[in-house]
């Protein structure tokens, strides 16, 4: 598993970003950038390349769903794997995200292992 990949963590709650960062570190991902909402994430994405976006659904200014749509509509970014973090496994939300091209979704709260599994799944797919 390539653990050098760069990951963009998007969440408006700073503590939550830190939680995810810690979990990622537990399973060996160190190269992490953060953004506090979809808009901020887009400007990060403009300035640098990331290999994976992990974004919360519910954020002010620009939600994770809007970010997903913007990423998928962008010629440069559209192939970037996108892991959506949701609070509940609500069918409507999940299906909506899946249709918009999310790579996978993960339900809060999750363990480092589950997060690692989801990331591995995503990269196994893109590699094959």
């Amino acid at each position, binding site marked *: 598993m390539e653990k050098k990949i760069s990951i963009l963590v998007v*969440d*408006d*709650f*700073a*503590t*939550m970003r*830190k*939680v995810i960062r*810690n*979990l990622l570190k*537990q399973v060996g991902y160190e190269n992490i950038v953060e953004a506090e909402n979809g808009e901020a994430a887009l400007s990060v994405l403009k300035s640098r390349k990331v290999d994976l976006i992990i974004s*919360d659904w*519910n*954020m*002010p200014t620009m939600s994770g769903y809007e970010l997903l749509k913007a990423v998928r509509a962008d010629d440069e970014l559209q192939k970037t794997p996108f892991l959506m973090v949701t*609070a*509940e*496994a*609500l*069918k409507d939300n*999940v*299906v909506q995200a*899946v*249709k*918009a*091209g*999310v*790579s*996978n*979704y*993960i*339900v*809060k*709260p*999750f*363990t*480092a292992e*589950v997060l690692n599994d989801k990331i591995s*799944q995503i990269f196994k*797919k893109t590699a*094959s």
Partner: protein
Amino acid sequence: MDVDSLIHAIDAMASDFLLLERGTVDVPTAGRLLNQLEIISGEALKLDAEPMRRLSGGLVALLENVIMNGGGGEADFTALQKGITLMQEVGSGLTKTDAPRGKDVGEFMSEITQLAGDGFPEETPSAAKEQEGGGASGLQDESLLRDFIVEGLEYINEIEVNILNLEQNPEDKDCVNSLFRPFHSIKGVAGFLNLDDIRELAHRLEDLLDKIRKDELSVNTDVIDVILEGADALKALIVSLQKKLEGHPSADPEVDLEALAARIGDVEEGNHAEKGVKRLGEILVEDGVITRETLTECLDVAKETPAKKIGEALIAGGKATPKQVSQALRKQISQASEAASIRVDTSKLDDLIDMVGELVITQTMIRQNPVLRETADEKLLRDISQLGSIISELQRTSTSLRMIPIKQTFQKITRLVRDLSKATGKKVNVAMTGEETEIDRNMVEEIYNPLVHMVRNAVDHGVEKPAERMMAGKPEAGTISLKAYHRGGTIVIEIADDGKGLDAQKILDKAVGNGLIEAGAGLTEQEIFRLIFLPGLSTASTVSDVSGRGVGMDVVKKAIDKLRGKVDIQSVKGKGTTFIASFPLTMAIIDGMIVRVGKEKYIVPTSAVRLLLRPDRSECSTVAQKAEMVNVRGTLMPLIRLHELFGIDGERKKPWESIVMVVDSDNRSKCVMVDEILGKEEVVIKGLGDGMKKAKGVSSGAILGDGNIGLILDPEGLFDLSETAMGAKRR
């Protein structure tokens, strides 16, 4: 007709599907398939190709199910494959003149309904597992908690500002959103940090706001109140967390989460309308005086002529008689009084009850005033007696203010039993009776720990494992019954299990083995049962997580004693055990025996006094020249001379001339010598202040009916004091 684009979409699906690894559907592919299916369904609708539409609908449901279950299984995969093949066949049928093969589609549909038809669990099994394991190990680190506290409190401030905006602009969805988000974020992080109370509460509030966002609930004062209350509670929880981090171990927040959750539920269900005051028109409609249509009509009329009230409009229009309207008005007013309640700071309530206590005492003092006794002024006497009855009514009312039902405690215990039964692999149900029984708010917390201990014991040692129960011919699931009722001035709580009962022989053997009693002491079964309250006696042969390890029932007994309560055990081998604990309703008042030593008056808690006697001279003896003993019905008990112990002048020096009280405390019994018993009185307990906290033998003070001050004796401290004094004498 665009059959081509339909066929194209089906082919795209088929090729997407071909690329899948056998057996699993990954999320991006599922997304593409769903998008294709959306096109197919749309085209099929235009073409009026019903079987195709049904087929695509079925596949959508199947796919959604697969997504929610994290990839789906072999069966889902096969069904999808079959569905897509069928779709291709039906699709090619559309271009030909043959009728679409409705029969095959029907068969397929019933096949996949079984796969997808179990409904879609809101939380998928994998998600549930993730949540159970939640709180990711290693995340309980302090710096994260500190971050959460700081950010969480900021968020709550934000909530407080935003809620005021919402109150002013109830329709503004942005306001709702800006409230929703902080709760949502707090919930999310709390989930990771194992802060279950916070997560649960934030979740409830988030749900409430979600309903507002979806227009399922309109914003009114009840909603605003409950959100504010929720934000306060969250703040309290977070602050207590902060205190705990700073090293205040007992900083538990005073938040009644269950009551709050219930209120949120009420508000969500719109129960506020029921509880609040109904509009006059509504009452009339309910009473069948007018129809709803008439009401709407008249409301319109009343709107046009603002001076007219709805009642007047109805009467003027001949829709209702003045009598009916006034009846409805009366109803409305009585509802208003039912609904009116205010929240009061508990410390104010405590002050009020204290003051009323003082008032009662002052009143007694006035009554006993000699001037009053000698007066012949009938009016004065009448007024005084009137004052007395008002004061006792006032006392009753004010004490009742602080009473709350024991229900919450029972509910907490129910939850505990559920957890315990899971931990022990037993099946246990809980039955409750008398949960409405009221008890002083200040007592609720105090009695919780001993109750928990007893319940733990019942689950752990009482109720047998399912297999064992079946063998004994009992239902597989055991039952723990919680029962509460008032008896005299006490609340009685019974905890009964239908388990294996206590083994008297085993307890006896253990007690003899530990040297707690002598073999052949000839105890009754009841006395043997009571042995389990002795320290160092746990009959469980294996130590479990739940109870055992010898700290058990003696702790319970101690806690109950401290609360001036009593506990009894009834048990039938093979049938079950019942613990019967009784507690005073309040800790503010004590039923005390007033005794006199010389000029001093003391109060002894009546619950600690076993008997009073004047011993015969022959029953008093002195051991080793110093230790005085009294033979109380065959048992020798040490004698405490209160006047010596407290260094005051006693009137009588010989035990056989004075009164001896047999006082019990924590499995010790001693005789206490006093000059006179003055009577029994309920006294209001007064703290002695910090300076006197360390004074042994006395716990607090009280103002007696005659206005004098009496010290309340603490038997346990008194015994310790006498033992140290005895030791000093010997040396």
